[in-house]
């Protein structure tokens, strides 16, 4: 892997506040990389240090082989799409997109105009160049910001929560378009987001950040299936947590019985003694009638349920477990929705379990 962005033990202090606590990270050329975490975790600070808007207190940042210690933001091979899009309100769409070309004395007016046309075409805004910036919708502003940043063909495109201001439908559409655009241009994208679903959908790899540190760096599937800690698991999707007790590679889980876990199922290290077992709702299912269990099974009662249309979420009370476990069932044709208080059998697969040391 040739790293286009390489951070080594990057520290950032604001006065006494320690915003980045030793971030080490390599991002490959052409990768769609996401920084995911709750607000205040340092993900935006990290993005801004890469862009050059914040100095690094300690550590090194290398962009495409060059140490960035003394390189100011306007000389870096990065461009940014801001959360507010930062479209210059006194300039037209065309002038906004062409703004970065001002310093390119090697191009004549005609060549610049052609580049602007290409950039507008890329984001689907042909014919908008005369439009005033404040006469654009949220999605259009987003596209102008993208075209303006990509026209300079940066080594790395930085995106600071670019979709958070859009409504749900528009967001879904832009997620798709952004991913396609990234594949098309082949530029490394670094996306900052607090939306775990967005990160999972778009990224090649995701760094989950808490308190100025990377908690886990993995591809979306590993991150979802094998979260390294209970905190990461809780942040990505929904997971049931059951108290358990480990001795050797055997784990005793009240309510689910004993299970043997592979080292892979203990991504944070094999626990011993009291620990926590995690299981995702969609990996468990309800057994109807005398349906045989595909894997292990146990009895429970429906404590609460939520009907979502395509899915039904059940909270199932298990004997010996304090908190009901949540599981989800697709509402297939002919499949009954259980009622509150109904007894049922549930099934799960031990391979879906993840163990966390307490």
């Amino acid at each position, binding site marked *: 892997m040739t790293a286009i962005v390489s951070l080594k033990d990057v520290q950032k202090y604001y006065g006494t506040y320690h915003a980045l606590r030793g971030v080490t990270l390599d991002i490959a050329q052409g990768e769609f990389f996401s920084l995911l975490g709750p607000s205040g975790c340092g993900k935006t600070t990290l993005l801004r240090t890469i*862009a050059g*808007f914040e100095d690094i207190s300690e550590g090194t940042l290398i962009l495409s082989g060059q140490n960035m210690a003394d390189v*100011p*933001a*306007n*000389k870096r091979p*990065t*461009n*940014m799409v*801001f*959360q*507010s899009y*930062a479209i*210059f*309100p*006194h300039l037209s769409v065309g002038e906004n997109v062409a*703004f*970065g070309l*001002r*310093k390119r004395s090697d191009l004549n007016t005609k060549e610049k105009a052609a580049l602007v046309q290409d950039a507008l075409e890329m984001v689907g805004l042909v014919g908008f160049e005369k439009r005033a910036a*404040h006469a654009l919708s949220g999605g259009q502003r987003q596209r102008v910001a993208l075209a*303006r*940043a990509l026209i*300079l063909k940066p080594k790395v495109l930085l995106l600071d929560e670019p979709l958070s201001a859009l409504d749900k439908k528009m967001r879904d559409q832009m997620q798709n378009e952004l991913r396609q655009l990234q594949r098309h241009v082949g530029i490394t994208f670094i996306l900052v987001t607090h939306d775990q679903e967005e990160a999972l959908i778009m990224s090649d790899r995701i760094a989950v950040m808490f308190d100025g540190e990377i908690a886990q760096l993995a591809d979306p599937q590993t991150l979802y299936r094998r979260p390294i800690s209970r905190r990461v698991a809780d942040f990505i999707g929904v997971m049931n947590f059951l108290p358990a007790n480990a001795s050797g590679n055997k784990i005793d889980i009240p309510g689910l019985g004993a299970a043997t876990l592979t080292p892979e199922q203990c991504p944070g290290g094999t626990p011993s003694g009291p620990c926590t077992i995690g299981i995702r709702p969609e990996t468990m299912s309800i057994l109807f009638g005398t349906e045989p269990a595909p894997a292990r099974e146990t009895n429970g009662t429906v404590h609460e349920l939520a009907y979502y249309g395509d899915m039904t979420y059940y909270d199932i009370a298990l004997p010996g477990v304090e908190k009901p476990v949540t599981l989800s069932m697709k509402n297939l044709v002919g499949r009954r929705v259980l009622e509150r208080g109904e007894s049922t059998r549930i099934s799960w697969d031990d391979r879906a379990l993840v163990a966390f040391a307490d």
Partner: protein
Amino acid sequence: MTWLRGYAVLYLLFLYAPIILLPIFAFNDSTIIAFPLSGFTTQWFSEIPNTPALVKSVQTSVIIALTTAVLSTTLGICAARAGAKYTFPLKAPILGFIMLPLVLPEIIVAVSMLVVLLALGLPLGSWTVVLGHTLICTPFCIAILNSAFANLDPSLEEAAIDLGETRASTFRLITLPLVMPGIIAAMLISFTISLDEFIIAFFLTGTEPTLPVYLWGQLRFPQKIPVVMALGTILVVLSIILLILAEMARRRGLHRTGTQDSGGFL
């Protein structure tokens, strides 16, 4: 509701009746300021250019007002920019302190400046009036420019730098055009304030009176009063035009940055 309407009419009458009298008597064909009116004339207006001392005082006032407008707006830009962009120790007290002349009685400012200037042995003249006017106009400029700079999304400047511009060219290409309506408004307002300011000018002007000081001096001569009224009429119209221009500039600025209106002078 009916009594409220009556109250509003009385209120407006109380506010503007004296100003309405000004143009009425400026066109009245009599040196006595009293009803009934005797006839229509533009004589008083045509007498204005034939009074050299008056013309001179107008010139002095305009020069002082222009200098004050440029100085106080420049200071206002620096203060508003610093307040909007940077954090520094004692920021709130410092910003509060430079706004103080806004509420300080002008007579206090005038007397203390006079004492200081005399103590320093400096001669009084147009430039001392400029000094005093800049002191009282700067807070107004800061108040106007604060909203212009505060409405500016900081990522706009970052975006320009990100796209390869330097700090200086970013200020020229992005910041300045976006706050320009605020700058124009600040200049117009400080120009207007300086032009009709009396107390400070009265204390600090040397041998060259400003227009308000000259007018005050003319009040002793009843036959000059209609000319004063004619000039007053011109000044009122001019002030209103300038204030309207200032407000238009401010609103255009809001429209440009796409932000909501949050007050203003009109």
